[in-house]
């Protein structure tokens, strides 16, 4: 491209001629290169490396020692891992409540009255705030001595509960905190989805005599499928990545009952007492494999879309 300005005596062989002839091949390559290098170096290779590390025993300091599948064997008997896995499952299932929750609020707000835009954005607020802050806020909310929750419970005569201190409740407490921003997220997705619903179809359905819930179920929801799909994907990803809230609210406790895989691996590999890189990597691999199901599903549906064009 710059060479074109110079007189060139070898225009026919190599040089700019070659560039010129192959520019439709070169151009995408050059455009792709910087991003791809970054991405491969920081994302793709590390994934493979994680797989590799998971076959080693390594404290991150000395020489790694190859142990084959030992880490995975240990995982299969590790109670903490089992707890984390179950908690991840709870997250997956309960986090999905954000979808109906978001839909409900979206339907509630899908009106055109004065100031509704402001309301919509205020409802969306929790999503913009860092999970760290959300975690802190909910920790205070649950605080066994002065938290608002117990103040309210006392108000109606129920004995106070220590949500985050009770191993049977703590995970749910954290999930509820997580649902708050996630519902806001799903709400926005549905609000934009509702905007795109074909008004003529609604009118046709009204002429057909569909009302209320039946209208919602038979006509609206099917049209909101793209929004639902996206909400589903982001919620699943959010559920599997959950780390910040746990770290802030319970630090995995009490006695490990709120750990999820992502937190557990951090604990095992990098925390104050964690020196087991191999083991941490093995946990990550398991998490990755779970996620792979969803990634595959997403890519598959994207692939179908691409074909459809």
């Amino acid at each position: 491209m710059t060479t074109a300005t110079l007189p060139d005596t070898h225009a026919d062989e190599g040089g700019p001629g070659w560039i010129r002839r192959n520019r439709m091949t070169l151009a995408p390559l050059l455009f792709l290169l910087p991003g791809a290098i970054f991405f491969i170096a920081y994302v793709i290779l590390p994934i493979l490396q994680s797989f590799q590390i998971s076959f080693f025993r390594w404290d991150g300091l000395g020489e790694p020692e190859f142990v084959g599948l030992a880490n995975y064997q240990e995982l299969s008997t590790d109670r903490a891992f089992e707890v984390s896995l179950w908690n991840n499952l709870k997250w997956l299932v309960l986090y999905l409540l954000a979808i109906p929750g978001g839909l409900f609020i979206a339907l509630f707000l899908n009106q055109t009255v004065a100031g509704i835009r402001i309301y919509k954005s205020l409802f969306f607020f929790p999503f913009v705030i860092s999970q760290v802050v959300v975690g802190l806020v909910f920790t205070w909310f649950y605080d066994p001595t002065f938290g608002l929750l117990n103040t309210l419970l006392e108000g109606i005569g129920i004995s106070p509960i220590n949500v985050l201190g009770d191993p049977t409740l703590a995970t749910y407490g954290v999930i509820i905190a997580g649902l708050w921003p996630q519902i806001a997220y799903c709400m926005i997705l549905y609000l934009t989805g509702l905007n795109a619903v074909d008004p003529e179809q609604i009118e046709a359905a009204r002429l057909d005599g569909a009302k209320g819930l039946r209208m919602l179920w038979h006509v609206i929801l099917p049209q909101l499928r793209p929004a639902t799909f996206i909400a589903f994907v982001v919620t699943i990803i959010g559920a599997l990545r959950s780390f910040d809230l746990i770290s802030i609210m319970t630090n995995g406790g009490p006695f490990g009952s709120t750990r999820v895989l992502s937190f557990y691996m951090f604990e095992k590999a990098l925390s104050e007492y964690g020196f087991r890189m191999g083991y941490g990597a093995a946990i990550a691999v398991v998490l990755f494999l779970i996620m792979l199901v969803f990634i595959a599903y997403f890519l598959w549906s994207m692939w179908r879309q691409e074909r459809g064009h």
Partner: protein
Amino acid sequence: MFPRPIETQPRATQITYQSLIPVALLLWLAPLIAVAIFSIKPDTDFTSGNYWGWPAEFEGFANYGKVFFESDMPRYLMNSVLITVPTVIGAVALSAMTGFALGVYKFRGNLWIFFMFVAGNFVPFQILMVPVRDLTLDLGLYNTKTGLVLFHIAFQTGFCTLFMRNFIRALPFELIEAARVEGVAEWRIFWFIVLPLMKPAIAALSVLVFTFIWNDYFWAVVLTQGAESQPVTAGITSFNAQYRAAYHLMSAGSIVAALPPVAMFFLMQRHFIAGLTLGAVK
């Protein structure tokens, strides 16, 4: 429109609805409002057990003053800015190029490379934790803002590429063909035609990436330590350790930490929502 427009309903329903919204909003934002009130309470309210009541007196200036002048908070905020802004620029620049390459050219493996970016973006990023930390150490960038920025750029490139590529796909391809017939070089097509048309996408992505990065906690913990390089999300925890049970200060700190993305959101609301729905992934 569904549900049925409220204007067509009886007056009573309309009034009920109009008054219900603010109530619902108050409930919905109760935790935040509580924090906001905490942050202007005097210390004594907490020792005297007045947690949820009205502040005994307005101590907002004192509290926020403390946060800004007697703690590391400004430093953390500065770090956040220095991490977030370059990341936004870097990720958007890189992904505009990859998105262009993937959206405009037909070549073998195009879709696979694209899927690589997409899949990488959905990976539970914890799996990257150990290797990325090692890589950063090897590069001598551990506990530096640069290290964090480089990683964030790389990781966000996946998401942004998905977004940009789909956006470019939706542009009329004839524009590019028209330019080609006119004899415009490929990079000039990118620069003079595609880039200006991508402004909305760039704006939306910038806002989105800004909030993602600003709110990142995990990588801040993994790749940095200490006030000289940690962003505000991580800083807020050590801030909280510093002020232990001083809830008024912790609240003020949290509000300060939450403010920039919130401000961003309000300023760029339209782009933000466009971004979420267009890209629709984190």
